[in-house]
């Protein structure tokens, strides 16, 4: 359940961003981007967020999670394909000479503040 530590870090980071932007108010919405191969579960993030945000400016914030994909690069047909899960073959030409990139991101994309 490392989502708890991730959400702890997220809440601190949101508070810092809001302070730095010099605005005050409650947070209406947060947008996150979580890679499909990151090992971070979106439902666990939501659960941890409900648990940890209650006494903060994020208490009633909506949380929108975009799941970003990984990229499969094929060394045979030179194609690049976005993928949801790990593959063993290129989805275009079925070659197994592929490399998987990305899909590990864990990003705070934007914060909507109710002023």
């Amino acid at each position, binding site marked *: *359940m*490392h989502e708890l*530590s*991730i959400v702890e*870090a*997220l809440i*601190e*980071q949101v508070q810092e*961003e*809001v302070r730095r*932007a010099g*605005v005050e108010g409650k947070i209406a919405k947060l947008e*996150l981007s979580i890679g499909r*191969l*990151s*090992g*971070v579960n979106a439902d666990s993030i939501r659960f941890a967020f409900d648990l940890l945000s209650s006494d903060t400016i994020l208490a009633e914030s909506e949380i929108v999670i975009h799941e970003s994909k990984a990229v499969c690069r094929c060394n045979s047909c030179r194609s690049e394909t976005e993928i949801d899960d*790990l*593959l*063993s073959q290129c989805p275009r030409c079925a070659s*197994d000479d*592929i*490399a*998987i990139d990305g*899909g*590990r*991101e*864990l*990003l*705070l*994309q*934007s*914060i*909507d*503040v109710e*002023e």
Partner: protein
Amino acid sequence: MKIVAAKRILKMNDQLAAELRDKFDKSSVFVVNIVGSPGAGKTTLLEALFAKLQNSIRPAVIEGDIAGSIDAERMEAIGVPVVQINTEGACHLDAAMIASAVQEFDLTKIDLLFIENVGNLVCTAGFDLGEHLRIIVLSTSEGDDKAVKYPAIFQGSDALVITKIDLAPYLNFNPLRIAADMKRLAPNSPIFQVSALKGEGMPAAADWLSARVAEKSNREGVV
């Protein structure tokens, strides 16, 4: 008002990890983060590595466990300086824990610091500890499908050590399968097949690691 942040969520951990890496560089300490499941053989691998390296390299260990100090006692028994971190339930180490553990060491007396992470293939993947290398340890008894099931930890690792290779004949473990998955996820990371208890494959793993340490200190010597 919309604030566009576009920042990594673990930015604070990453910043602290970068500061730690800088401190390790300045003290010429090479740091390796060892990850793997509970029972994969991380501590036994360290014992076998130290038996090979102790004459040429001054090692130290940070042991991360949820509770207890069994692993730290094993390191003390072979004379390796050790600090135990008890995470009290947390499933991974983070950079802040390392920063406080490192204060217990005299870094001028260490060449190679191992951080043995909490046994876990999921949660340890996202937390940079300021290490120079991350090594994933997988035992043959866990099965050859683990890279497909836990891609993040394999994707970010600089080497894979397959332990308990002497048991492979009794298990359904195909080293070619995990090698193919590693080629997709971490094409530049070498794979070592070892039995830490019997010694099989250990020289290659130890030589590779000493070469990485030497490479790093040479590079710093030039700068």
